[in-house]
């Protein structure tokens, strides 16, 4: 068989996938072990700059959103959501929150990681959504654990100096709170090292994503969904840099050898919203059968970049806190319409995107309640066909595969026409 004719199956058998599973498993084991040995445990929202904890001797962090995504991916989303609903939490609440509340209030049962170790401090962040503050308040009330919220102003335009200063001040509060509570001293040099490593990891991450520009694409967005997990469990570590370097190298090698995830790729698509965690395999497989590849996703291309940008924001070696503050807006949710459009436009050009799939996600209103206008912009201003499908990122009960695929197939027809 010629390399270019290699199958999707051959593509999947790379070592990064196996290394990833081991890494995530070890990260969770390590988290539980260190917590049980007395480390200071913080629960954080995804955007909280975890590199700061690298500035402490013995602080470990857990990310409930990431844990919820893992549960959804492993198929325990619905059972955990139902538990939260049984505790009185509405089915209209974000499914990450429901999964996590279901786990936390049932002693970690049905979680592939046996839940998360009890926190000493909760740190939420308003910039992805301020609901995270409400969500963490649930634990704060139930367990009496202190809760500190970081307030990051929404970006309708690039971060302003006043917002930057405001964020820096909050980092100061965060550091002194941990110092006081844990009795540990914050070491700026250690934090600088973590930041340096994160910056390197983001560069490698973007190198990995850059293979989406190849025709056929060297990756699928589903690969990026799976591979983003250690950013949330190993941020600011050497192993994260090594992992992404190897991942990018292996992908380069595969592309060189003509091994592609969708070898007969006819449609190159972009995904807008959080990953459909319960559908990764199914959706990518079924799309591949139609010659379609979702090569890029706003959810993963935003990582490491400033608002509205694509390229990584590199650390200059100076003030690690300043780099973290400037990068507080990296995810899509706190971006206004113009910034979202700017970044998407860039990726559509770079990766020769034929069509955009807007995944309207009632569980994540912040991501979704701009999509109708963004879709209009992409369709009318850029002339790119688009479709909107309904997907709940973590609650499979709110997803209909056939309805989604009817629309996806219509999109492919539109592109083909």
């Amino acid at each position, binding site marked *: 068989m010629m390399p270019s004719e290699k199958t999707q199956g051959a593509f999947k058998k790379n070592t990064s996938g196996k290394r990833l599973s081991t890494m995530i498993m070890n990260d969770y084991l390590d988290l539980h072990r260190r917590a049980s040995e007395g480390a200071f445990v913080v629960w954080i929202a995804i955007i909280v700059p975890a590199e700061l904890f690298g500035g402490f001797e013995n602080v470990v962090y857990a990310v409930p959103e990431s844990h919820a995504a893992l549960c959804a991916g492993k198929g325990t989303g619905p059972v955990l959501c139902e538990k939260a609903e049984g505790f009185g939490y509405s089915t209209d609440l974000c499914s990450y929150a429901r999964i996590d509340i279901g786990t936390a209030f049932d002693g970690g049962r049905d979680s592939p990681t046996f839940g998360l170790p009890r926190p000493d401090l909760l740190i939420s962040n308003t910039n992805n959504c301020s609901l995270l503050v*409400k969500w963490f308040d649930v634990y704060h009330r139930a367990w009496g654990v202190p809760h500190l919220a970081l307030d990051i102003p929404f970006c309708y335009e690039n971060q302003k100096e006043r917002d930057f200063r405001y964020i820096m001040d909050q980092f100061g509060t965060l550091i002194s709170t941990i110092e006081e509570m844990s009795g540990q001293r914050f070491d700026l040099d250690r934090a600088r090292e973590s930041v340096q490593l994160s910056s390197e990891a983001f560069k490698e991450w973007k190198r990995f994503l850059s293979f989406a520009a190849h025709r056929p694409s060297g990756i699928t967005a589903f690969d990026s969904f799976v591979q983003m997990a250690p950013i949330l469990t190993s941020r600011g570590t050497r192993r994260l840099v090594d992992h992404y370097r190897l991942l990018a190298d292996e992908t380069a090698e595969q592309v060189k050898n003509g091994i592609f995830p969708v070898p007969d790729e006819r449609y190159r698509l972009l995904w807008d919203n959080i990953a459909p965690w319960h559908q990764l395999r199914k959706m990518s497989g079924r799309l591949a059968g139609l010659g379609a590849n979702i090569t890029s996703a706003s959810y993963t291309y935003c990582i490491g970049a400033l608002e509205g940008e694509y390229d990584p924001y590199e650390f200059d070696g100076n003030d690690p806190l300043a780099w973290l503050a400037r990068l507080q807006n990296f995810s899509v949710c706190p971006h206004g319409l*113009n910034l979202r459009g700017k970044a998407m436009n860039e990726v559509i050009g770079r990766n020769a995107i034929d069509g955009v799939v807007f995944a309207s996600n009632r569980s994540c209103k912040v991501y979704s309640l701009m999509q*109708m206008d963004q879709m209009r912009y992409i369709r009318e201003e850029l002339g790119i066909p688009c479709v909107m499908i309904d997907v709940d990122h973590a609650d499979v009960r709110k997803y209909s595969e056939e309805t989604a695929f009817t629309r996806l197939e219509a999109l492919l027809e539109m592109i083909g026409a």
Partner: protein
Amino acid sequence: MQSFPDSLADLKSQGHTLIGCFPLYPPLELLHSFGLSPVVLWGLRQDITHLTRSDRHLQPYACGVARSLSEFVLSRGRELLDAIFMYNACDTLRNLPEILESSLDRHGASIPLFRLHIPAVPLSRPFASDYLNERIRDLIGELEKFTGRSFSAQTFLNSTELYNRQRRLSRDLERLAETGRIRFADCSDILLSAGRMSLDDHISILERTVREFNGRAPGHQGVRIMLSGILPPPVALLDAIERTGLTVVANDIAALRRSYDYLPAASADPGAYYRDLYRNHYPCTTILPSADSRLETIMQTVRESGVQGFIFVGEKFCEYEYFEIPAVKRMIEAEGVRTLELEIGMDDALNLDAYQTRIEAFAEMLCHETRGSRRDNDAV
């Protein structure tokens, strides 16, 4: 009563410069001090029955407040509003400005938009109050440009006094409802009408009503209940509540008590004034740092008002409210207070039969229990 758009058309014809404010707690005094008439765009559901424009921009899982607000701004905004103001009250609202702006622009109907970020961290932290100060200063600069007027400390002080007068009267009116001198449905209607008339007119109506009903004897008291939510339930449900023998003696409604319960000290300094107002505001699910005090405040009100039943008036898809309901429910049920959860969605306003039945059943249970406990007491 006149519809919301008609009321605004009247105000405009009287020469008011209207600034449509996104809910919940915009800095009304500052806007007013620049000669603007702020109207808060909530409670529009009964007037906005079709969402033709808004549905082109927002998915149906946005809350009814956001959808009806968007519909109003897109369909009548250009004609009735001179400017729009928004702040980071909630995630849904923070997503709206550019959606509305770009749509209005496309139709050649742009409206100036002002934005403010109110810190979602405790204002007791000096940097947070400095940040609020800076944002307010910037807003003042923008308002100066827009209105062509300079900021006047004296005018601002006057505005703060007027709004405090309105708050005081609103509390007085609410107390009249608590004692059954005025129906809660009427009280709520008068309080909500603040959003559709000038401040002076609203103050006059409040003064008149408070004077008139103050002289009345306390009315019949049914089983004492409290309401909680973003907006009061539709009038038909308030009627059902009263008809079935329940009396609303307290509320934790954002458009009512949460809006006017705290009286900040009148001040000529906007920074100091808003630091005080937002720091000490009556707790609300959308004022994130007030989370701890919210439960205490509700509990205290439940106890002080001798509430026997508690109705959550959930605004469908308002996650702020829904995250807190289980904790509040557990807490007040532990006090022996019965609870009922209603969920009002955009389409429900026209079809309230099912809710009325649930209210009737709730009232029946409460009345039965009250009669039972009275009998027990008599026996003792």
